[in-house]
């Protein structure tokens, strides 16, 4: 079909789509985000398609791969529409039953239902899952009903409606900026800068081109918010960017768009490329979009795997073909960014919020969240929590509610110890602050930060010194290496912390770390350096006792630092079953069957295998 040349044509097409679609049609939606894909969703989809074919019901039942639903713990996930029956941990061998029993006969397959560990109740419908029930899924809500590779799915759900309404109601670009300002939307990529103010500054900066960039270089370990949004609903990001281009560069300037996306996100890249092609085919990108006079297209730029390229100036240098190194921002990128032109950069989640805000209205959006942090935030909830996955909650929800209500509490009944937020340059928040409402400012106050939304939950078996060492190790490799303070400072802080975990800590180490932290923070150029000491400073602040135990007593209270722990066999308990001796990779355990065994310390590498395998808890760790 020909591209839409006006909003009237778009509306007519959408109307026809809605009329043609049967809302009661049976659709078997399979989560096909990266997590479910890794858990076998590809094979599952093939098996379901085959089962549909064998049952001869392809006229009534379809199989739809979707983006990430969020409940990664239950991967792979299947939702059978229209009743939204949820099945978790589905295997290809269940395919025939799902088609024949659920899709065709409406029966619920009990063994595939999720069992709430708290109540023992089986959850039948997607919406009843406690994991989803406490969330506010403005952005993720459509993921289980949308095929991200079909623009028609987005259009049938009112997609590109925010953009069309701007044109229908002739809302001026400046008025859009005012709306975004009023909505209170703050950048979701880390800094939390008010998006409307950024757009305004960029619009007012002179230049023959105004660039609009989507930062999809999400590099925090354990974070996959932006990946999931791009995989699940790429058109929401594209629509946000079109509206941004209109607000920032129309009609006084030319506009061009870029998405800078990690090479390591093949599925997101694939789906984004499809979405861009489909948007172009429909005339939603290109010259004179919908007859508006706005010409705008988006180029995809692949990142090469450097964490620092998530920093705006490094990202722009990388697009230009230079090494990804940040530059001083005494002149802001909104004035002189990509190719020296005014450039507005926001991250994936920020752009996806734009059509949502305009669709639901500024007042309704402002009603969600806290005084200075509006709307929702997506977190990737990972670590020692029962329900790992992607969660979207209103700003201001307490850590306790996120971890215990949405996340279902700590695994294996262990004690909650700390949560690390904000990615590698964030901080560790201790259990004593569990009632903290999560928003930009409150996280800053306690020495952490929102970052892009990683949330790593830690239990009593996590050593906080080791956590600091882990993040320093990441940062010393991911610093671009330009500033001596960041490059050498992080590396030297790593040396000290690593020494402490090996039992080589000395009195004065903590003070030296604090001195180094100051110079790294104060004298480095970009946010990577100025925030890099956070993992060390926050663990020193809240877990000083653990540092002291490592340094003075050569003891790791969490029993994780290998150099500081000893495994022994408790003679009274050992039954001589030989399990430990069999699993020991260094043959450090000897003993005769049915007699007490012995660990030879000089051979032991503290791997903990014996501890895990002992059936009678006869191994102690000190």
């Amino acid at each position, binding site marked *: 079909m020909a591209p839409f040349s006006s909003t009237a044509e778009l509306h007519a097409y959408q109307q026809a789509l809605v009329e043609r679609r049967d809302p009661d049609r049976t659709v078997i939606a399979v989560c096909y985000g990266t997590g479910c894909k890794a858990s076998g969703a590809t094979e599952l989809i093939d098996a379901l398609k085959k089962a549909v074919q064998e049952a001869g019901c392809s006229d009534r039942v379809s199989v739809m791969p979707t983006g990430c639903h969020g409940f990664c713990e239950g991967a792979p996930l299947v939702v059978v529409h229209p009743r939204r029956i949820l099945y978790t941990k589905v295997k290809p061998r269940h395919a025939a039953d799902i088609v024949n029993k659920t899709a065709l006969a409406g029966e619920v397959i009990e063994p595939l239902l999720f069992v709430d560990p708290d109540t023992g109740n089986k959850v039948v419908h997607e919406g009843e899952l406690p994991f989803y029930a406490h969330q506010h899924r403005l952005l993720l809500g459509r993921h289980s009903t949308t095929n991200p590779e079909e623009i028609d799915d987005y259009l049938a759900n009112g997609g590109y409606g925010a953009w069309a309404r701007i044109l229908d109601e002739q809302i001026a670009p400046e008025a859009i900026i005012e709306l975004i300002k009023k909505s209170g939307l703050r950048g979701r990529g880390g800094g939390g800068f008010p998006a409307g103010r950024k757009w305004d500054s960029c619009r007012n900066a002179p230049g023959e081109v105004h660039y609009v960039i989507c930062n999809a270089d999400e590099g925090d370990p354990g974070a996959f918010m932006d990946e999931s949004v791009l995989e699940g609903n790429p058109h929401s990001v594209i629509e946000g960017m079109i509206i941004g281009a209109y607000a920032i560069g129309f009609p006084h300037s030319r506009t061009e768009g870029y998405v800078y996306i990690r090479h390591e996100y093949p599925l997101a890249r694939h789906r984004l490329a499809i979405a861009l092609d489909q948007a172009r085919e429909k005339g939603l990108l290109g010259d004179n979009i919908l007859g508006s006079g706005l010409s705008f297209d988006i180029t995809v730029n692949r990142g090469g795997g450097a964490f620092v390229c998530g920093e705006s100036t490094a990202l722009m240098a990388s697009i230009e073909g230079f090494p990804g190194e940040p530059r001083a921002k005494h002149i802001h990128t909104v004035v002189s960014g990509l190719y020296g032109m005014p450039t507005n950069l926001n991250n994936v989640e920020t752009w996806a919020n734009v059509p949502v805000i305009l669709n639901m209205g500024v007042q309704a959006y402002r009603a969600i969240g806290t005084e200075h942090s509006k709307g929702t935030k997506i977190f990737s909830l990972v670590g020692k929590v029962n329900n790992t996955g992607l969660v979207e909650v209103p700003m201001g929800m307490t850590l306790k509610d996120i971890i215990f209500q949405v996340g279902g509490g700590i695994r294996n009944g262990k004690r909650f110890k700390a949560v690390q937020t904000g990615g590698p340059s964030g901080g560790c928040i201790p259990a004593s602050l569990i009632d903290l409402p999560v928003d930009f400012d409150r996280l800053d106050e306690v020495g952490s930060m929102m970052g892009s939304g990683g949330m790593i939950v830690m239990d009593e078996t996590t050593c906080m010194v080791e956590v600091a060492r882990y993040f320093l190790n990441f940062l010393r490799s991911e610093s671009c290496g330009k500033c001596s*303070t960041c490059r050498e400072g992080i590396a030297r802080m790593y040396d000290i912390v690593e020494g402490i975990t090996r039992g080589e800590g000395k009195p004065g180490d903590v003070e030296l770390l604090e001195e180094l932290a100051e110079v790294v923070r104060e004298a480095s150029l970009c946010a990577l350096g100025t925030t890099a000491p956070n993992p060390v400073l926050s663990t020193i602040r809240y877990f000083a006792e653990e540092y002291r135990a490592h340094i003075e007593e050569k003891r790791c209270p969490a029993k994780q630092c290998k150099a500081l722990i000893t495994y022994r066999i408790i003679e009274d308990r050992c039954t001589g079953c030989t399990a430990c001796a069999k699993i020991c990779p260094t043959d450090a355990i000897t003993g005769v069957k049915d007699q007490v065994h012995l660990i030879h310390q000089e051979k032991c590498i503290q791997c903990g295998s014996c501890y895990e395998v002992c059936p009678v808890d006869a191994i102690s760790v000190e």
Partner: protein
Amino acid sequence: MLTFTIDGQTVQAEEGQNLLEVALAHGFDIPTLCYHPSVSAYGACRLCLVEVTQRGRSRITTSCNYPALPGISVVTRNDRIDRLRRLVMELILCRDPGNPQLQAMADRLGVDRTRLRFASRQDGCILCGLCERICRESIGADAISFVGRGHERRLATPFDEPSESCVGCLACAMVCPTQVIEFTQDADTRTIWKRTFTLVKCKECGAVLGTPEELALFQRKTGLDASYFDTCDACRKKQTATAFAAVTWGGQRP
């Protein structure tokens, strides 16, 4: 011209100048290892920290890449700046505690040793990037660049092979603040960055003029006649003086 203050003294600067060059031009003493007036400021060493107050807000920043702005006030030394500079110096010193140039700078800042573990590769390179900038910006050869990132960053030719675009001019070695870029030269050849060049000599006196690649590049850049590069500066001066004398005094000195 714009006006601001450095340590309370009013100074004037051109728009586009950075704080460090203005401060140095006015006789203020600010330490630096990565700044050179003939190339762009980069901000790698972080020694040139100053405190800038603008509209009531103060911040510590490097002066080499901070623009001179009207009305700001700049402090080049106070206890905090001194302490931070000493810490920066300790960090830089880790790269090669025995390097004489680094030791001299450490002495100047009152740092007698570094309390930190030394870097794994102690080749004296502090990754200031002056060699790379002089090669790219001033020479225009672009023969070396940074490789890798983080604590594995280093300077190298492409793929560590002898660089095809190197002209053997030695500008990198001359500008290096720690003097660790190695080169060798004998009567007829010069070797740098693993590449050996033959040397062109002055047709008059036999003094070394440079490499053929270097001379060709400079000829291209300056547009001078090729014969200009036949002789050394001293012989050319002598030739010019002789010719001048012939025209003026008929070859006879008065």
